[in-house]
């Protein structure tokens, strides 16, 4: 499967995406987790204690004189798949992890060597090797300006608040793209009351494929920079994400 988690900032994309990756990997499926947020947070939710994981300089080189394309690319002969095998971090349960990397300039405009290579890898990854699960930047500015093109399934994380619902409607519109046909669905998070899930369905117009309850233990894991699936494996929220993995099983790559 090729999945992108999107949604308003703070709705729980990283915590759900990290748990989703681990649960999928535990079933024996190959998982590549990608964090394309320049304010990265997915590593912690996967159970990796790193905050910044750029590709090493040796993996990336400047394009040759007269060569087309951006200034930096993977070194000659290194395919996207090789780059993952060689350089992606390995999280618990065998999840491989690739990160766009933090903003390193005050204007946020300059992409660095590793960031060019990140974009190339996402573009060129083979279809059938990994289940690709992406944690995309919050809000509406970045997800569909190139970042989410790889995705065949867009999971919009929505909490039952007016702002999150409005953001979800905008994201649903932005994700609709004839050039990149994809399934767009909602995952309700921080569900507290009967009727919350129904409200998310009604006010986004989307199919709700998962409902994650409000859960103190799940929230506490985030505060401790730990993976919810390690810290609170039996919590209702982790169980709900495991059900979501089941729900989407027909999309898996074995």
């Amino acid at each position: 499967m090729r999945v992108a988690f999107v949604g308003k900032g703070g709705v729980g994309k990283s915590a759900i995406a990290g748990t989703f990756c681990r649960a999928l990997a535990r079933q024996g499926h190959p998982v590549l987790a990608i964090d394309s947020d320049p304010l990265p947070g997915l590593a912690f939710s996967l159970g990796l204690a790193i905050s910044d994981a750029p590709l090493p300089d040796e993996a990336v080189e400047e394009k040759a004189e007269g060569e087309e394309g951006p200034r930096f690319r993977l070194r000659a002969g290194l395919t996207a798949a090789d780059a993952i095998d060689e350089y992606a971090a390995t999280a618990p349960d065998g999840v491989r992890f690739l990160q766009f990397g933090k903003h390193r300039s005050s204007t946020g405009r300059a992409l660095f060597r590793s960031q060019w290579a990140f974009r190339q890898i996402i573009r060129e990854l083979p279809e059938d090797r990994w289940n690709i699960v992406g944690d995309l930047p919050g809000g509406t500015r970045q997800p569909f300006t190139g970042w989410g093109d790889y995705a065949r399934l867009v999971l919009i994380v929505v909490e039952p608040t007016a702002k999150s619902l409005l953001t979800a409607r905008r994201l649903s519109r932005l994700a609709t793209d004839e050039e990149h046909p994809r399934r767009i669905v909602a995952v309700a998070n921080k569900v507290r009351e009967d009727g919350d899930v129904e409200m998310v369905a009604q006010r986004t117009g989307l199919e709700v494929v998962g409902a994650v309850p409000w859960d103190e233990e799940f929230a506490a894991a985030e505060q401790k920079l730990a993976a919810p699936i390690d810290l609170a494996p039996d919590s209702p929220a982790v169980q709900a994400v495991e059900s979501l993995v089941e729900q989407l099983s027909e999309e898996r790559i074995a």
Partner: protein
Amino acid sequence: MRVAVVGKGGSGKTTTSAIVARTLARHGASVVALDCDSNPNLGLSLGVGDFETERLESMRESLDAGGEEHAPGWDDLIERFGSDAPDGVRLAVVSRIDNPSPG
């Protein structure tokens, strides 16, 4: 005064901004609330409602579409493209992402 509220997504920027804006207005200050987020939700927290929050076009888009040679002054922009929120706060949206093409 000129205040900018910043922070991580979901930490409460919009809610805080709206309460500060309305509280200042209730104390008699003349307040312009600027939504500088590309995913503008400030209208919801100020209390103008779902429909008006979505209706408000961004000033940047409106200007791009209008093809004006000189940018009007800020007060003119806020007058033309803003919206009235409760307690006399004037709300304006600076930019919004409305299509997925990179730019």
